[in-house]
């Protein structure tokens, strides 16, 4: 297990490095002069030169990359070009909102999707299975932004039950939950379908295994067979899916953060790309990559703990 852990961590470090390199090249390949976009048409040549020097844009690209990596290793992600605030501080303010939204969205969808998938698999081709199938495909097919808009129109504009904008007052837990309901619903709805379909397919495969038939032959209770023996194996691909899905949600919550005017990493990346605020973009994407790698690592470790056979593979 320790050897597997070490290999996975080294692989994660390599992934982060390659991702940073790709990010750096991509950012600097975006058409348009970052100086004129960031400073606007009124900036004087002196202000442009000062900006270029501050951003190291007057140096060759490889030099800029070395400076960036060096600063990252020192924990310095630079300062926001406009407000001059520390990027690390900005991101530390924004990240919790995105994590809470992603965890809540994936959490509630797992709570609904996994049992739905189990029920469908236990009673294949039943009415419940068919309804679950239709609902699952439906939730997967509806784009999340459409769910957001309809949810706002029904629950906020029509019924006035739930708020549209913001993340609630800091320190007021109830208010924060209140502001989380609609975005988490919109982000998580599609995952209900994904998880239900994934668990159903895995369960059907596992339920046809010999050891399940043996358990049935020994007269074990069906609840014990499903939850103690079948689900433990069938859940493995689902855990991987949740891990990858959570990572994707860290940047994929952008639509919810914009529509619901919530703070968060996705929204900040979107706004900063438009403004070519490179330090914040680089910092935000770096944090997202780091989170993605950590969550994937945790998912892989969970799978290897549940199924020791995967420790021999990488």
């Amino acid at each position, binding site marked *: 297990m320790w050897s597997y852990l070490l290999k996975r961590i080294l692989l994660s470090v390599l992934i982060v490095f390659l991702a940073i390199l790709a990010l750096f090249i991509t950012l600097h390949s*975006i*058409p*348009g*002069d*970052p100086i*004129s*976009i*960031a*400073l*606007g*048409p*009124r*900036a*004087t040549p002196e*202000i442009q030169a000062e*900006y270029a020097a501050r951003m190291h844009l007057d140096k060759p690209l490889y030099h800029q990359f070395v400076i960036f990596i060096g600063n990252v290793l020192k924990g310095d992600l630079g300062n*926001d*070009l*406009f*407000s*001059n*605030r520390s990027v690390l501080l*900005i991101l530390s*303010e*924004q990240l919790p909102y995105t994590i809470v939204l992603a965890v809540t969205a994936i959490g509630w969808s797992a709570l609904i999707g996994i049992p739905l998938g189990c029920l469908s698999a236990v009673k294949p081709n039943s009415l419940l299975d068919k309804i679950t199938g239709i609902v699952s495909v439906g939730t997967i097919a509806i784009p999340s932004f459409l769910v957001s*808009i309809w949810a*706002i*129109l029904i629950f*906020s*504009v029509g019924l*006035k*039950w*739930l*708020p*549209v*904008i*913001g*993340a609630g007052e*800091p320190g*007021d*837990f*109830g*208010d924060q*939950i*209140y502001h989380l309901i609609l975005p988490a619903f919109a982000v998580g709805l599609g995952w209900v379908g994904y998880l239900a379909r994934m668990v159903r397919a895995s369960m059907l495969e596992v339920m046809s295994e010999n050891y399940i038939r043996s358990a049935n032959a020994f007269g074990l209770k069906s609840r014990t067979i499903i939850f103690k023996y079948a689900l433990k194996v069938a859940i493995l691909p689902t855990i991987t899916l949740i891990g990858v899905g959570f990572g994707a949600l860290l940047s994929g919550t952008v639509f919810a953060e*914009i*529509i*619901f*005017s919530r*703070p968060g990493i996705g*929204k*900040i990346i979107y*706004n900063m790309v*438009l*403004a*070519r605020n490179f330090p914040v973009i680089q910092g935000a994407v770096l944090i997202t990559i780091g989170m993605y790698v950590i969550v994937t690592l945790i998912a892989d470790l969970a799978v290897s703990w549940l199924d020791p056979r995967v420790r021999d593979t990488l």
Partner: protein
Amino acid sequence: MSKILQTRRQLLQTIAFAGIAGTAVGKFPGIAYAADGATLKIQFERELDSLDPGYFVGGSPPCDVNWALMPALVHYGRGGGWIPSPHVESVVARDATHIDFTLRKGMMWTNGFGEVTTEDVAYSYDREAVSEWKGDYVAYDHVEIKDKYSGTIVLNQPFAPFMNTTLASGTGIIICKKAVEAAGGKFTTEQPASCGPYLIAEHRPGQVLKLRSNPEWNGAKPAYENIDCLFVTESSAAALAYEAGELDIAKVSADTYARYLKEIPANSSLTVAGALQYMWMGMNTDHPKLKDIRVRQAIQHAVDASAVVQGAYSGTAEQSYGVVCPGLTGRRDKAGYSYDPTKAKALLEEAGVSGLKLTLRTLNNQERMLTAQIIQANLAAIGVTVEIIPLDGGPFWDMGQEKKGDTWKELELWIMRYSSGPDPYEPFQWFVRGQVGVWNWERWSSDEFEDLFAKGVAETDTGKREAIYTRMQEIMDETGAYVYLTHEPEVFIHKSSLSPHFSPTAEMIVGAFKEA
């Protein structure tokens, strides 16, 4: 006993559940409806990056907040034009180059920095005159300090728009010399000292800016004790938030404006805060395909701007007949050409051009793309094939600038929109000779135009300015390089109980908001 509660255990369970539910409901606030008590909730379209009028990078100065927090000599009045601010006893233009002012005594800076003085005024304007906003201060020379409260602004040349476009705008904000120097000479969102009807109580970046009335303010008390400025960057999200009752005022897009014109939410009003944007299709007069003025004139006659107003803006924008925006001196009701496809075809034939293929570059937002498609159809009707090239802001704003690559050489047609200030001289500054290859992408120049531009800036007689700016637009027509399209209005929806106030450039002057 009812059938629902048949046992003692069920009764206890029900009471316990009710208790938990009650606690939860008590914990959950109701929706923070706008105009809740004395708090006004307004939409801010963009994040607050800097409040320092001298060091604001990119975009426009953040005057909508600064006007509520900081002193100025003049403000924009509700009836249009400028009015003395609450910080002054008087502001009088003695002659074309001297403006006398007297500050009110006892206007105190926060954080113990004493009174607002003439020295602060001189420091603020001197600083602005060397900032990236120095264009607004091109005619400014210096401030003569008479005493602590009075002085004279001296201009180096007559400059008719000085009051409206400089002193009343965001660059006319006065800052506290002692406080700014103590802060190292500049600041961003944390003002070292302020002096206005409001104070910043809290700023959560990306979420909210909370303004609270300033207890030390000795001017007229503002109508609202508290103003929460919520950062909602998407206009459709803001409209939904308004409809849900979470905002008291929000800016609306063209399509939402069209929807509200048919059916407006209850107890709401629409205010058009100005239409100081001018959009046109430009043509590169240096490009070989467009070198012949008859080809450019044919294109002028082929485009139906009224179709753009209807098709791309749902009839909510005003048709444009020049670069001077509605409400300003020199605004025309007719351009020097008209929509006439037959004449357009004749001009092309006369020029001996057939099978012409052109590219049309535009920003890739909804209205511009629709506009481009309408123009594409219009030009197809006279036998000109147009390829639309949608672009992100980055490459778009660089494409006509000689310093930013060679795209300007292959530039043919493009859709452009600029914003104007409240004085008609502003749009013309981008088309003078010095702007060729910078912002004058049509790449023409004219001695008469240069001469008139200088005269217009110095002229104070409205009738003469009208004649000057009308003639300048005629010169632009005659180049054949412009097809004027629209003036987009800046529209806000707000509670009918609110009487908002805007600058001519449609920034909210929140300190002057009052109850209707």
